[in-house]
Every structure is written in structure tokens, then in C-alpha cells.
């Protein structure tokens, strides 16, 4: 028996006998076991098992052919022998004492939480059955109490599962079921830790508030994909890439299905006559069902008559104009209220001058999601505009020169006073005035 087998034997034995009661070691049993071990090792020395072809679990006697084949054995021999027998143990049954004690504590806590949930549910049922007149404070107080009880149940549901390592693992692997509150909780925490802050920063630095909406605090994660490629919030997108409508990945963090409206809005359309900027609607759809579980929302698939109001218009810019901010706004409709898309079509068929604030107020919507990208004039814009019949490709904006209102200032200082021929002997010191001249002569254009 090799050294590593001798070392790994107690571990392997313990794992094999997990369920049976482990007897005290006696000499005879020990000897029998050694024999058994020798048998197994001698039998395995004849033909390599599939485990011996894996560099993670190869036995010492089969190392040589594996190394010859170019696969170096991984880890120590002790580890490899241990891996041969422990690969099939599920994570929660791994025989680590502290881990198992910890699991026992967490399981007891979970039982407590579940009992509390039951208690709260009973309370809710009792309160619902009670007549509002009998509750102190009447109907209003009853509603308040019910709401607070339901909120506490939701919190307890999260707290019951938050210490489960398998839940954490499943979430990290992206296998979490978003219909369950714990996974939504994890997802929201992750979103708030970075992506939400990024979006909030874009809203601030691009002045979405107050240029487009007076107030905007996103509650849902909206990611933007053009051609299967994720676009960072606020990135400048080539006009050829943004010619086709994007795909959104929308993750909402509260339970249930709801209807949303989707608006893509260009907030920087140059208006040369008025020397100002106006807004233009690039896409408008309503009555889009959304739930925590279905996250993909391709704009090209929204075609239904009761959903699509204004089809996709490729965002374009004009030469010399500053970048256009293209905001993607997700507005939640009131529960159970469907918008009349025919009316929307009539209202917003002329895309120009679209006001998101008035749209929000008119249909009682709440903005829940936001993302944005930018568009500038580039080498493909003219072709895109020609393809879609958008006028203005031949226009070039130039910045108007703004002259200073201050009167010209005469040069000041010791050097300026000694420029004249009376100071010819000082010219070698006086011909270097900032903004006027340097060693090679006059630089100021007159």
C-alpha cells in the first residue's frame, strides 16, 4: 500500500461508513480492512479505471502514462485519492464539523422564521375575517394593519432563506427562480450595489433630470443590447449599429405581472430657427407585459396592434451638432389599465416635440426603468439617413462665434512699457510678452 493511500484511508473509510455506526477499531477488523485495501489496489493495478485517466484523480501507479500523454496530475496524491471517493457527496453533507454545526444553527433559525411567518399569516387571516367596524380605527386602520403584516411576511420570507448557502450558490450561478422573493432580493442587492448607481450617475451627469423628467428614480434594471452586444449606459453608439432596434433586458424586483409603456426619446434635436433644442420620439409602445421571470424585451418583436404606437426610427445626428442623448424610459401603467394605442398613434404620429412629462401625466404612468445611449454624426450616418428618408444629411452646424463684450485691453507690464525705440537697449529683454510675442518675434495677429 502506498503512502498516500495509508494517509487517505481513514478519511475514505469514514466517508464510506457515513450512515452506519462507526465501531471502535479492533485489530482484526483493521487487518481485514488492510487486506481489502490491498485487494482493491492490486485489482486496480491491472487495468486503469476511468478515474485513473483523469489528472484530478489518478492513482500513483498510473501517473506515468498520463504524464507521457502530456497531462500532468493535479494536486497532491493525497488529494487525488480523497477526490476519488468524495466527488459524489452533495455539498450540504460534506463532513466538516464546523460547517455541519453551522448548518444546524441556521436550520433552527429557519424553523423559527417559518413559524413566525405562519403566525403572521394566521393574524392576517383573522384580521381579514374581522369586520372593519370592530377594528379600532375603522377601515383605514384595518388596511394599514394588513399592509404592515404583509410587509413583515415578505421580510420574513427573505430572512428565512438568506442564510442558505445553496440558495446563494444557485443565485451566483444565475439559476435563481425570480418568482421567489429571496432571489429577487439578491438580484436587487446586486443591482443596487453598482448598476443602479451607474444609472443614477448618468441621469445626473447628462441632465436627464430636469431636461426630460422632473424626477426619475429607477426601480428596475434595464440593460441595452445592440446586435447581441451590451451597451454601457451613456455610450456613443455608431449609427449603423443603432439602425436596427435594440433588445432590452428588463429585470423587475417586485412580484407579479404588470403592463409597461416603453419610450425611446431623443432629447437633443437641434432646432436652428429658434436657436434651441427640441425632443423627438424614436419609439413608443404600450401594454407590454412584464414580470420578474421574463426579462428579454426585444423592441423588434413588439409589433402587435395593441402595443406598438410609434415604430423605431434610427437615431441620427447632424454634422457639427453636439451629441444626442437617446433615453430609454420604461413607464409602469396603473394596474389593470390598458392604454388605447390607437389614440397614442394619433397623438404622437408626428414624432417631433414629444414631451415625456405630459405623456406621463396624461396616462398616469410612473417611470420605473431607465437606460440611455448617445448618437453622434459618423461615417455611416449619411447612408442611414438616406435609407430611411430622414432629411438633413447635407446640413452642417457650425458654432456661432461669440465675441467678448469686454473692451480690448492694452498690454500691461514692465515689458509693454519698454517696447518703444527709446528702450532699444532693453529689447532683448522686452520682446517676450505672453500673448504678444516670443523670442522669434510678434505672434499676435493684428
Amino acid at each position: 500500500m502506498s503512502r498516500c493511500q495509508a494517509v487517505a484511508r481513514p478519511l475514505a473509510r469514514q466517508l464510506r461508513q457515513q450512515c452506519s455506526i462507526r465501531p471502535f477499531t479492533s485489530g482484526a477488523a483493521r487487518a481485514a480492512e488492510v487486506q481489502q485495501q490491498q485487494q482493491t489496489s492490486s485489482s486496480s493495478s491491472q487495468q486503469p479505471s476511468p478515474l485513473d485517466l483523469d489528472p484530478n484523480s489518478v492513482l500513483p501507479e498510473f501517473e506515468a502514462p498520463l504524464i507521457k500523454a502530456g497531462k500532468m496530475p493535479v494536486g497532491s496524491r493525497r488529494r487525488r485519492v480523497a477526490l476519488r471517493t468524495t466527488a459524489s457527496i452533495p455539498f450540504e453533507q460534506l463532513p466538516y464539523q464546523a460547517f455541519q454545526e453551522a448548518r444546524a444553527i441556521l436550520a433552527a433559525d429557519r424553523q423559527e422564521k417559518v413559524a413566525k411567518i405562519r403566525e403572521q399569516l394566521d393574524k392576517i387571516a383573522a384580521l381579514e375575517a374581522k369586520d372593519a367596524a370592530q377594528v379600532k380605527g375603522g377601515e383605514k386602520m384595518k388596511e394599514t394593519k394588513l399592509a404592515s403584516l404583509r410587509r413583515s411576511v415578505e421580510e420574513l420570507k427573505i430572512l428565512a432563506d438568506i442564510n442558505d448557502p445553496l440558495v446563494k450558490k444557485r443565485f451566483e450561478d444565475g439559476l435563481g427562480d425570480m418568482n421567489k422573493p429571496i432571489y429577487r432580493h439578491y438580484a436587487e442587492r446586486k443591482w443596487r450595489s453598482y448598476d443602479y448607481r451607474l444609472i443614477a450617475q448618468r441621469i445626473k451627469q447628462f441632465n436627464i433630470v430636469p431636461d426630460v423628467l422632473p424626477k426619475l428614480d429607477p426601480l428596475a434594471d434595464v440593460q441595452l443590447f445592440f446586435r447581441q452586444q451590451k451597451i454601457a449606459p451613456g455610450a456613443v453608439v455608431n449609427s449603423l449599429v443603432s439602425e436596427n432596434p435594440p433588445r432590452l433586458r428588463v429585470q423587475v424586483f417586485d412580484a407579479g405581472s404588470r403592463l409597461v409603456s416603453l419610450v425611446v426619446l431623443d432629447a437633443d434635436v437641434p432646432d436652428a430657427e429658434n436657436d434651441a433644442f427640441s425632443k423627438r420620439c424614436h419609439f413608443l409602445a404600450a401594454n407590454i407585459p412584464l414580470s420578474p421571470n421574463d426579462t428579454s424585451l426585444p423592441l423588434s418583436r413588439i409589433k402587435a396592434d395593441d402595443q406598438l404606437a410609434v415604430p423605431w426610427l434610427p437615431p441620427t445626428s447632424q454634422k457639427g451638432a453636439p451629441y444626442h442623448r437617446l433615453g430609454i424610459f420604461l413607464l409602469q401603467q396603473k394596474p389593470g389599465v390598458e392604454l388605447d394605442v390607437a389614440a397614442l398613434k394619433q397623438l404622437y404620429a408626428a414624432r417631433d416635440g414629444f414631451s415625456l412629462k405630459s405623456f406621463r401625466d396624461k396616462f398616469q404612468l410612473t417611470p420605473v426603468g431607465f437606460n440611455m445611449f448617445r448618437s453622434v454624426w459618423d461615417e455611416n450616418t449619411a447612408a442611414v439617413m438616406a435609407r430611411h428618408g430622414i432629411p438633413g444629411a447635407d446640413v452642417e452646424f457650425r458654432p456661432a462665434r461669440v465675441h467678448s463684450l469686454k473692451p480690448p485691453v492694452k498690454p500691461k507690464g514692465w515689458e509693454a512699457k519698454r517696447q518703444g525705440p527709446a528702450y532699444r537697449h532693453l529689447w532683448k529683454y522686452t520682446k517676450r510678452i505672453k500673448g504678444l510675442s516670443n523670442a522669434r518675434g510678434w505672434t499676435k495677429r493684428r
Partner: protein
Amino acid sequence: MSTSTSRPFSTTPSLLARKLPTPSSSSAKPARRNRAAPKSENFNRIRTLRRNMFSPAPPPLRMARQRYLRHWTIHRAWMLFRRKQHEAIEKERSRMHAGMFNACEELRKTVGPGSRGEGYLYRVAMEKKGIYGLEGVPIEYARFQTDTPAKEAWNHDWKR
């Protein structure tokens, strides 16, 4: 003595006759060393602080997936355990405090014993004499305790 090797050319008899310090005189040094540097009472604390303050932070824990998950589980269980312990201690202490408060309130309301008025027992119970030492009088008793400073902070005209 011919042990003086540092000045081989010196022929002065007085120099040659000079004695080197004997080993018996040098043996006094370790004794002095032992006497030196009296340790302060905080010596151990200061040594620990010195060690920990200026040493670099320990490296972050590097663990593989499953190991990290086990570590996380144990950490969560430990935090839960600590919280429950704290809550239990807190509860017990507030229970004891409430008990004392109720007892004092009861004392404050009682009349007597004998011809004593209401709250006599409470006042006696609130005495602090002797709790800072056998004959000690707490510093609070040096001056009558008030909620606000006196209107006249110091009487300058006072004469004995």
C-alpha cells in the same frame, strides 16, 4: 603582562605595566543590564499595539468556490449566534433594570417607617456613602447637585 598587542612598539615600562580590565570587572555588566529598563505597567499592551499598528494588513482569504461557501455558512451562523446571545443579554439586563426601577418606585411611594414621611426609604436607598470605599464619600456630595448652574456663580463679597 604581555597581553597588550595593540601597541607593539611601545617600550615604556609604565604602559607595559598597565593592567587591562580584568574579567571580574566586566562580569558586572550583565547585572547592570538586568537592573536597567524598568517595565511600565502597560508594557505588554504597548508591545502588542506596536506590533499590530505598524504591521501590514494580513492578506485576504483566498478560497475556492465550495470552501468559500462553507466559510460563508459558518460566518453567517456565527453572526446569528452572536446576535442571539447579545439579544438575550440585553433582554435580561433590561428585565433586571425594570425590576430595580419598580422597586425604587415602590419605595418612593411608601410612607414610614414610623413617623418618617413619604419617600424616606427611597432617599436612604439612593445614598451613595460607602460604595466607593469603606469611608468614602462620593464627589457628587461635595456640592448640592443642580440641573442648571447657579445664577451667581461666585460670591465675591463673601467674608468670613
